[in-house]
């Protein structure tokens, strides 16, 4: 078992972002998300409610996961279906019985992809606004899919200027007085905080949330757990209700992403329609994202001579690329350790206001 505490604190020169700007830019522009495959990570493969006696099938980078519950309720995540007579040879990611490490937390079944002996509960990301033992009502949960590679989906998420254009009809357009973006990171996470002053009110809050004003103050946080490809999307709106979304992007294959989301709207009054409508917005919003990430994806499959152009608003996206590449490089060198703890409570980092 891997012990996070035992790892030496990262030294300054280890920070892939604190390098000279030219090196940083070179990394940003060598971005080939299709070639990145990170292991030794927990992936939220299914909502807890979806797993019962009958095996369900999931995948991470095309590795099959068959997940079911034994009569005593305990979980099995196997590489082959119990009925499969022609099971292929066992991968390095499962134990003698062909089982992956599996764990249940926050209302999800998490499967480990990586060396089984390294699977440790402390590598499960912290999600402050999901109850640890699950139990959110079904209307707050759902599945959407993207036909693009998972890092592109996350890069999409961490640059929220996109929302002003492709989701304007749901979350409001780009009209506002001021926008600031701050970015924090460690070796396993990146956190972006976007503050908007006097931004057009999100139509969904006008229509269903009872917000009467024309502008609102917005603070949105996106925090990505790099290895798990899972993100927290936390928004504070005033006037308006806070939005508490868990947004995992499981790389089922290198070019297909599964998102079993949880939008915890229990902070919203039971009489407010927003509580029931906001989680459903994912169906619309995800198609809007897909309209861009789907055609983008093949354009990031092969090395490309021309560099992407960047603006100061892309700081988070650029750092995301560099941090992902740094992890991939470390793993290529055989270093799978977690230098930073992903499970310690991140409430302060995301500015979570407990209801």
């Amino acid at each position, binding site marked *: 078992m891997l012990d996070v505490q035992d790892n030496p604190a990262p030294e300054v020169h280890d920070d892939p972002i604190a390098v000279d700007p030219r090196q940083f830019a070179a990394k940003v522009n060598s971005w080939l998300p299709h070639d990145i495959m990170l292991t030794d990570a927990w992936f939220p493969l299914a909502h807890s409610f979806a797993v019962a006696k009958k095996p369900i099938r999931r995948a991470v980078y095309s590795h099959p996961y068959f997940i079911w519950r034994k009569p005593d309720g305990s979980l099995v995540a196997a590489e082959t279906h119990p009925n499969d007579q022609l099971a292929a040879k066992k991968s390095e990611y499962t134990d003698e019985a062909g089982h992956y490490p599996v764990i249940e937390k926050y209302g999800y079944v998490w499967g480990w992809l990586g060396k089984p002996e390294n699977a440790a509960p402390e590598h499960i990301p912290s999600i402050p606004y999901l109850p640890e033992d699950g139990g959110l009502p079904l209307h707050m949960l759902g599945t959407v899919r993207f036909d693009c590679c998972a890092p592109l989906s996350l*890069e999409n998420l961490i640059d929220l200027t996109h929302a002003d*254009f*492709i989701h304007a009809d749901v979350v409001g357009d780009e009209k506002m007085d001021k*926008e600031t973006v701050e970015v924090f990171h460690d070796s396993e996470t990146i956190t972006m905080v976007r503050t908007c002053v006097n931004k057009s009110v999100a139509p969904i809050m006008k229509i269903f949330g009872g917000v009467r004003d024309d502008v609102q103050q917005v603070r949105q946080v996106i925090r990505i757990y790099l290895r798990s490809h899972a993100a927290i999307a936390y928004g504070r709106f005033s006037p308006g209700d806070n939005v508490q979304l868990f947004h995992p992007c499981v790389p089922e294959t290198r070019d297909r992403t599964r998102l079993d989301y949880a939008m915890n709207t229990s902070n919203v009054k039971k009489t407010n329609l927003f509580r029931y409508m906001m989680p459903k917005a994912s169906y619309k919003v995800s198609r809007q994202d897909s309209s861009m990430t789907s*055609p983008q994806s093949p354009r990031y499959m092969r090395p490309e001579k021309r560099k992407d*152009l960047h603006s100061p*608003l892309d700081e988070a996206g650029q750092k995301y690329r560099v941090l992902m590449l740094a992890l991939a490089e470390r793993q290529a060198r055989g270093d799978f350790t977690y230098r930073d703890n992903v499970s310690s409570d991140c409430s302060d980092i995301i500015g979570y206001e407990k209801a």
Partner: protein
Amino acid sequence: MTEAAWWAVARSEEISADKPHNVDIGDQPVVLWRDDKKVVRALEDRCPHRRAPLSLGCILGNGAIQCGYHGWTYDGASGQLIDIPNLKSDRKFPPVYKARPFAVHEDAGFVRVCLDAKAAAPAPDDRVLPLSGTSIVALDHEHWIAALFDDPSLVLSIKGVRFSPYLLTELSEQQGKLVLERSCQWASPHWPAPFTSDFPISLRIATDPVTGETDLTLLDDEFRALFRAVLAPVPAARGVTQVRWRAALSPGRHHLMAKAMGIGTPFRVFDHVDGAALRVLKPSASIHASDLRESIVTRKSGPPTAQEAAA
């Protein structure tokens, strides 16, 4: 070679100031739109920010195109980035901040694009051809043109006209084009083509050796043009060919069948090609096409011939 060619990638009526339009030239995606002066603009259909297709964006009131993903906004003529709305600043962007522009030329109801942004405009064309259409065919450019040479009935139809297998001239070069003439019959009762002494009509096909842009002329036996059309096949992604065409019937057509061409739809380019028929289509006129093409193109890139110099 394709870098210097002018490709008729759209009909004028297909391009508006309301919505960007996507076409391909081979594997090169292109976005087209009309700016605030109604001038057609063409950029690579790829935003240099995060590679999203610009054709999914919108056209602003000032005629610029705005990417639908993060709102980067480009000038149509130069491709230069002119705005990132969320930056809320008026500062100018460095010259490398641009989408790749292409040269555009519009006349005779066609929008032509040249991948070389600095290309000189093509010769003006003042033909007015009121009929028009677009067909997207799952057959590659070279084979589509070969089918047109070997048996036009596989790729198009002219109302009341039956194409015979008999050629008046085989494929040869005339003024830089690949030209052939095919004997045709009216689709009325008559002796089968193999037993026919004289044919009442013929179809002249004159094709540009590079783009495959083709002038079709249907002539009667007194050398009067009954019908003319311009076909513009353009290679697209995955071996598909986009065929735009414009056509006109000549006034004063005398033969009964020629008169009847004016009723209904006189011309069609097919969206589908019969694979079974195509597979067994005997290569005939097309056999010399590639040699002829090559000799024309190499000569064009060299010094002009006496004939060209005189023209």
